[in-house]
């Protein structure tokens, strides 16, 4: 089973993607989605050599909902800054986020979350992969940003990725 589905979450995603693509859920589509969701990961597995270890499905769903909520907030915050804050009052800042996550997928997910949420963009990673460089649009207190990221997102991700 593991050989047939090297990345089960990918297969699941692809199954869903096919249904989304055909914009329906007819029986034929389900069968075809299953076939493709099996074949395509096999074709591309060479490019995903390691095995992603993920657990705790409720945590994943919780994380997704949290991020969506944060994105909505982020957009409002950024919109206000863009529209109403004079450039002179902006206090952009660079923040270094030390990370404990070791899985590349987890790090990427964290970095992506940071970018998608309020006023922060992940700009770089250290060559050893142990810290992220984050740019803040308006951060009078950069340390607070770092702490929030670590507690709000990284801690949750640690529970998801082993």
């Amino acid at each position, binding site marked *: 089973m593991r050989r047939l589905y090297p990345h089960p979450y990918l297969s699941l995603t692809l199954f869903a993607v*096919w249904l989304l693509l055909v914009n329906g859920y007819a*029986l034929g589509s389900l069968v075809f989605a299953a076939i493709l969701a099996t074949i395509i990961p096999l074709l591309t597995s*060479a*490019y995903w*050599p390691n095995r992603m270890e993920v657990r705790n499905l409720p945590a994943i769903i919780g994380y997704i909902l949290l991020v969506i909520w944060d994105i909505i907030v982020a957009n409002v915050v950024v919109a206000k800054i863009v529209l109403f804050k004079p450039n002179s009052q902006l206090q952009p800042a660079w923040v270094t986020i030390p990370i404990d996550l070791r*899985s590349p*997928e987890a790090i990427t997910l964290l*970095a992506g979350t940071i970018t998608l949420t309020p006023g922060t963009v992940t700009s770089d990673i250290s060559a*050893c*992969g142990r810290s992220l460089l984050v740019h803040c649009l308006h951060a009078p207190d950069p340390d607070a940003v770092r702490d929030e990221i670590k507690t709000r997102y990284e801690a949750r991700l640690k529970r998801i990725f082993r």
Partner: protein
Amino acid sequence: MSLALIVALPFLGAFLPGLMIRSGRNACAVSAGAITSLALVMLGLHAPAVLRGEVIQTRIDWLPQLGLNANFFLDGLGLLFAGLILGIGLLIILYARFYLDRRDPMGQFYTYLLLFQGAMVGIVLSDNILLLLVFWELTSLSSFLLIGYWKHLPEGRQGARMALTVTGMGGLAMIAGMLILGQIVGSYDLSVILQNKEAIQASDWYLPALILILLGAFTKSAQFPFHFWLPHAMAAPTPVSAYLHSATMVKAGLFLMARLWPVLAGTPEWFYIVATTGLVTMVVAAKIALFKDDLKALLAFSTVSHLGLITMLLGFGTQAAATVAVFHIINHATFKAALFMVAGIVDHSTHTRDLKLLGGLRRAMPITFAITTIAALSMAGIPPLNGFLSKELMLEEASHTVWAGIPWLLPVLATIGALFSVAYSFRFLGHTFLGQPRSQLDHPHDPSVGLWGAPAFLTLLVVLIGLFPMLSAAWLIDAAASAVTGEAVAVNIYHWHGFTAAFWMSVIAILGGFVLLMLHAPLNRLWLATPRPEAKRIFDGIVEPLAALARGLTQRLHDGALTRYFAIATVAIVAAGFAAFLGGAHSPGLRPETPVEIVPLIGWFLLIASAAAIVSFHRNRLLALVLVGVIGLIVSVGFAYLAAPDLALTQISVEVVTVILLLLALNFVPKTTPFESTRLRRGRDGVIATLAGLGSGALIYALMMRDSAFPSISGYHLANAKTEGGGTNVVNVILVDFRGYDTFGEIVVLGIAALVIFALTEAILRAGPANDRLLTWVQDQRDAGDRHPLMLVVATRMVLPVAIMVGVYIFLRGHNEPGGGFIAGLVVAIALVMQYMASGFAWTEARQRVDYHALIAAGVLIAGAAGVGAWFTGTAFLTSDFGYVTLPPLAPFELATAMIFDAGVFLTVLGAVMLALASISRIALRAGEKVNTAPYDTDLPDGEVR
């Protein structure tokens, strides 16, 4: 048939000497001689009949549609000339055998000689003026080879070129003249033309035709002012000079004038052009001959002079004069060929032809001396030799010919010509053989009989004809002259005419000639002191500047300035388009304008602004590329807006692959374009571009506003796509079915493009400047450290499978909804490119080797097979079929053979894009790009560690 054979023999035999040369020089000469003899014998067999007044004809259809046929006829004139050509040819072959050096390639010589001989015989036996032209030009070509035979001599090369140029020019003029003549008469057959004197001479085109034909004749016969090539042709080996430049080729012009005499002669135009030219030539050339120190040059100008004489006689337009011309043709051939051979003998044994160095050879070379004496006396017109007979007759004719109302002009000038002729003849004889022997000459001696035999034979003829003209020549003259004039001629030649004007003119000429020779030394000083045009300088002065002009013009015009080529092309296209438009009626269209909405207006503005920005900022190449991307985006969205989603899909995916390709290439070329063109030039280009833009914009506007006069064929496609093609996406059904053949060609184009790119890459990566440049490549920009950023690599692990799935989806739905194999191929290719960008070429390749060549080939083969498959059902290539498959519990779905075709498209596109990108990546690798072993560069415990 046998006439054709006489002509063909030398041509067919021309290969023999070349082949026989391996068996030795004698075999070579004998084979050439045998061929000539055979032809001569065959000619001789016809002689009795011809002399009885019959005309022998052979007709072979060649190009009857044009009136060009291999028709030959033999009459007296033909017999005379063919006899001369073959007879003297035989002697020359003999003479050349002993004349040519051991080192000379004799096989080549005889080959050329026989080719020439065949061409000459062809001229004189042709009964079709187009056929005659063929042979005429052949003589120019073969003589080019013969004159240039001694390839190591620059004079040979130049002389050959000059001869070819001048006679070639005449030949081309003659083509025009002959064609006109044929048009007037309605036939190119000589025997027909010769019957149409009135029609020809009454035609408006008579004079042009006459001039054009005479141009051919005059150049060939070296008539003034085209006489200059002949002396330079003397760089040829002496046998060639003797044969071509005295006996035969130069007489081709005379032959032609004689041949066409019945229809062209007799008009004032003819008289003034031909007689005057002949007269001037005779006098001028004779004078020049006197002052030439080179034996062959002297003979050459003498030849020109005599040709002038004959021309003049033909120009008189009377039967008597024409008869004399024929007679002199015979005589001149005998003594002049002999004299040329003598010159060769002298040259051969003394190694010089310079009259200033020669002298007193009579004792050392008695036989040669004897031959020369007779021949030279004949040339001088001393009785009783044959030269005397014809010259006397000439003077007689001249004496009663009035030129432009001046009775004395012709006699006086003719006498002067004769006088010079006497002088140079005696100079030739005297300054070579008489006087004191010259010590610096190294043991001169008579040659073997092989060399002197031929001239001796000719001298014998000189004497024979001189003593017994009626017995030895009159029959031939009669026959030939009858043929020339078209009326029966019976000559009566005798030595003594009484004290006629001609007699006194002759006396004056001989005495005057002696006096002139006595005065040669002072006159020569005067001659040398007088500035005079030198033919070669003039010729070079015309040809070389022309060649230089041609070179200059050609090089300047085609100097590789593509931008100018483009400017010219654009202007030409726009101008032609406008002109075409203005030349026809145009009813402006009445279609209503489609209303404009705000967003398209913004898109339009974006497009205009981007185009303007590209023009302004194109020097920043990356920016220009980004702007092209913007335009691509807008065009894609525009297609979607205008109800063409397939186009939008294709445009956008092609767009991104193009950008990637350009970025890959841009890495190796300068990132900016320097300021180079002047303001003026930019202005010019701006004007051209504006005109082109106005043109295309106006054209499409006019087209859009007018309805097509007929219903478009696309109505059929709309009506039948579903029912006959099995798909609701009409565009796709057109692509894979109605016009699947176009698509087949289109994927072949893509496949070829990839192959070309691959082959080009191979060439670049071979040892050479490009490879050197790559090996020492230094990036012109600072590199960032991170080559395979972690986030991209991880994201690609998701995006790649998703994108492939999108590709599959787009492929499968293509027949019914926007999409299809082409877009699907591009989508998958883009996905793979993303993988390449993420983890690098080498890492990706190492994990999954796909043979892109095989993909392309398989794609084209599958698409082709899908087409060919239809043959098995008895239908045409690319005939498709479709049906619905029911697999319970699934809903029925459609399968169409067009999908197999589309699969071929998919594979080809994928393979082509990937092969092209992989090829460029190889260039980057050669330029020192490093190969990674891990999927990303960040230190993380993932898969392979670096």
